[in-house]
């Protein structure tokens, strides 16, 4: 059995730099949860299907279970912990709470990080566009209806409208 190599990496997560020596076969999702101990990023299927582990890698949504931590050396990452501003919730969080956009909450961090990037690019989406943008995130509780309503309301809030 081959033993793993190690490498020292430096990653900026939510604006803070973290240096760690890690095994090169460590997944980025495990690095975030176990090494940096930011456990808001959830791990569901661990093969790129469920979307629970979605983070922003250089500003773009990506599945952290499909990346090696070593690939993030020098990169900028945002996780769900960066969404609220202290006690002040992000409009996505407010809208999800008000619309009952979650039940067990396991899929929620991945959905919110995906939608944060999506709404920044598409501030005025249609319902059909929201459903397509959500297609890479599985939720087994809600049936998606309240999630779609929450995203549409968050988009309105972020445009400065009060729906």
């Amino acid at each position, binding site marked *: *059995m*081959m*033993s*793993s*190599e190690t*490498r020292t990496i430096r990653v900026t997560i939510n604006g803070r730099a973290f240096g760690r020596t890690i*095994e*090169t*076969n460590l*997944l980025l999702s*495990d690095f975030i949860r176990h090494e940096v101990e930011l456990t808001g990023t959830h791990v569901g299927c*661990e*093969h*790129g299907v469920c*979307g629970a582990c*979605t983070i922003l*890698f250089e500003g*773009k*949504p*990506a*599945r952290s*279970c*499909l*990346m*090696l931590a*070593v*690939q993030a050396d020098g990169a900028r990452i945002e996780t769900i912990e960066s969404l609220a501003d202290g006690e002040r919730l992000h409009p996505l969080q407010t809208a999800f709470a008000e619309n009952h956009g979650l039940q067990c909450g396991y899929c929620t961090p991945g959905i919110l990080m*995906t939608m944060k990037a*999506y709404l920044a690019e598409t501030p005025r989406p249609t319902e059909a566009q929201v459903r*397509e*943008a959500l*297609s*890479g*995130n599985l939720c087994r509780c809600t049936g998606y209806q309240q999630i779609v309503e929450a995203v549409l309301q968050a988009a309105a809030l972020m445009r400065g409208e009060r729906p």
Partner: protein
Amino acid sequence: MKPPPFAYRDPTTLDDALALLADDAEARPLAGGQSLMPMLNFRLVRPSTVVDLNRISALAGIAVDRGGATIGAMTRQVDALRAPVLAEQWPLIRMALEHVGHLQTRNRGTIGGSLAHNDPAAELPAVMLALDARMTVQRAKGARTISAQEFFVSSLTTAIVAGELLTAIHLPSPPPGAGMGFAELARRHGDFALAAAAIVVSRAGAGHARVVVTGMGDGPQRIPAAEAALLNGRFGEAAIAEAGAAASAAVSPIDDLHAPAWYRRKIAGVMAARAARDAIGRMAG
């Protein structure tokens, strides 16, 4: 669900990557990771060395000249989807990429990675076959160019051999006035196709038709009888129906848990006819 141990290298030049691949037949190149990473997590593959291509910036990018387009193998799917230069002459790329995975996977997934993996239900291999694409494959000492027809061998198998790396995809300029169409049936948006069809047609010269169907179990397949039907029937409604029937007759689908073979055969024809009608509608002249 964790990758096995491996040596990890992340070269910044193509030459260094090719040297690493030349030295070690068990090394695997890592592109966007949207197929190889799940296979590593399941330990379906145990490479000695992972050669990460993500730091080789020269492998990404799209260049268009009079002869056609060259797409670097490490071009992200999202960048190809949004490239105006591709949308203008090769709208088939955009049409198909909208069906490839989800926005998270397209941000990482690459054009070359998808082609080299050659999943039998993937959209991009079918598109490259319909566009008469040619693949440049490099090794430490030399390069060769392979037609799409020869490149896609069978399910998960391409003409790439150990030590070689797919570095670029060349799209010839489409025939004048070409129309392109794509149709797919999948259980959920972003899933692999139960059946999909990619079609290019043109009235220029003696006429041009490419009909490619995928999702049948063995990868993309050109359907010469459907192409002949479209050309002989002058792209009329009867010709479209005949092309669909020819596609259904030509495929050899398999039964699996997603769909029985008879259903796949039927929708192969439906998708071919639907994509043909779409392509013909977009054709000039």
